């Protein structure tokens, strides 16, 4: 009898852990998508694009506005509405990404190291307050668009649930990242991007339009962030103008953890941060989940100074 109880307990604990794993992977996918944008920009021009988290927030707002707009004009067939909203948000967020680069970073290209960083912080403050002023400071709730899901197992009243939303998030992320990987590894655009990442000056000497490549990097990064914003909106159902900061810091942490400059590293880092956060909340305390994520970053950096998949930098002397 006691043994049986122990087994059920263990199964129950396992079920609980499985649920956390599902939640963690979902959250990690969102972080990973944002982290890719950080790591791409860092790889090419070596700057921390502080405004990237806010582009993610703008993407979430654009998704919300698109969904409301589509509902108002009577388009209620969910798959089409979602697809249209996603494309709209990605396109307009890409335009925001392009504008931010053009206005705040391009004039500072080749300038001193800290100038673009301050400009980026200024842009981040600007975007945050711009959305706060134009859309209001209140949180925006959205009713569940894709309710329900599959029950994987049930044990002692605890059900392991895989929601449609989580399935959709994982599938969309994998598809988007697949397209993105193809773009970077197999197309001429990707080749110029990688060339610029290796050596910006040399690439420009070889006739690559580096300004255009950098712009495209921002455009792609912003579009990916908008996809993340779209999924964040649907998954959590509430957004406000401040979500960009925390998500941005976490995603940047993910990029550093994965090895900054490495695209697979960004996704891996995102998944790790997502899992750490969810498991910590589930087993220890929700309040200190951010502390856990950041502390693990510090510890990881001490033992793995270049991140998990980062290239070791041998200093030339």
């Amino acid at each position: 009898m006691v043994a049986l109880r122990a087994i059920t307990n263990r199964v129950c604990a396992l079920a609980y852990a499985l649920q956390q794993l599902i939640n963690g992977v979902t959250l990690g996918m969102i972080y990973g998508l944002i982290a890719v944008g950080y790591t791409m920009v860092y790889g090419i021009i070596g700057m921390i694009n502080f405004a990237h988290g806010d582009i993610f927030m703008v993407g979430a707002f654009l998704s919300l506005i698109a969904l409301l707009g589509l509902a108002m004009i009577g388009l209620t067939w969910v798959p089409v509405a979602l697809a249209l909203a996603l494309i709209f948000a990605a396109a307009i967020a890409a335009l925001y990404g392009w504008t931010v680069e053009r206005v705040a970073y391009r004039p500072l290209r080749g300038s001193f190291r800290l100038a673009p960083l301050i400009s980026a912080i200024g842009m981040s403050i600007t975007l945050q307050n711009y959305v706060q002023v134009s859309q209001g400071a209140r949180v925006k709730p959205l009713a569940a668009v894709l309710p329900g899901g599959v029950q994987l197992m049930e044990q002692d009243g605890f059900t392991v649930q895989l929601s449609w939303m989580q399935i959709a998030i994982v599938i969309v992320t994998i598809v988007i990242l697949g397209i993105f990987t193809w773009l970077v590894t197999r197309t001429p655009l990707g080749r110029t991007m990688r060339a610029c990442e290796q050596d910006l000056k040399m690439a420009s000497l070889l006739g690559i339009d580096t300004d255009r490549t950098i712009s495209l990097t921002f455009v792609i990064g912003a579009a990916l962030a908008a996809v993340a914003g779209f999924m964040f909106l649907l998954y959590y159902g509430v957004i406000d103008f401040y979500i960009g900061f925390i998500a941005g810091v976490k995603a940047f942490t993910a990029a550093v953890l994965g090895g900054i400059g490495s695209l697979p590293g960004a996704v891996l880092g995102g998944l790790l941060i997502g899992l750490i956060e969810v498991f910590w909340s589930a087993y220890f305390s929700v309040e200190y989940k951010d502390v856990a994520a950041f502390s693990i970053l510090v510890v990881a950096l001490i033992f793995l100074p270049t991140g998990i998949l980062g290239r070791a930098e041998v200093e030339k002397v």
Partner: protein
Amino acid sequence: MLSVSDLSMRFGGLMAVDGLSFEAKPGDITAVIGPNGAGKTTVFNCITGFYRPTGGSITLQHADGRRFSLHAMPGHRIGATAKVARTFQNIRLFAGMTVLENLLVAQHNTLMAATGFGVLAVVGLGRYRAAEAKAIEKAKHWLDATGLTSRGDDPAGALPYGAQRRLEIARAMCTDPVMLCLDEPAAGLNPRESEELNQLLLRIRGEGCSLLLIEHDMGVVMRISDHIVVLDHGKKISDGTPAEVRADPAVIAAYLGEGEDDEVPA
């Protein structure tokens, strides 16, 4: 003085230095030469603590008998206590600081001790003022030796190339080294500057400091070295006086094999 024994350095699959052993005698100018990619700079980086060797040992003995295991010391201690100074292939000056400031930074450890580790001197106590005056005197001595006296208050980054090379040597000498390691000091110098460099190096040797240098300019190497070590593909292929090395068939083969005319020992 300096004894390198069975030194190895591996980068991934590449054996940059492979079982190298040589000795540098006190008061000598020892030159390390070899074709490009022979592993000369890697040897230097191991000696001066920028790389930790994969294998082997590097030992430095001072005149007073103290011995230092350079391969196991933290980088900054090699300069501070073992008293090995170095210059860099790509000049590394503090470009935004003046020439004089560069030379004072080099005397950091001495000056720092005189400030009572920073605390006393802030409130104007301690014997810092005298220590600084002494440091400036030493700086002036080396400014004079390198012909930079008139440029003392100019920013280091604004000096012409040859002067920057000399300043780097002056800065290294301000640490009072027992051994000075020079990484291609004559690179980019014109013949006149190169000749001045020879005189400077001989003068440094005359003040009791041993020299270890990597050089491509055979004019410099053959004229001033007491002892030459030749490397190729990370291994020692010859070792001896300039005359011996010049006559060594292995050296000739290595250089001719490379097909670089300008590097044929003159």
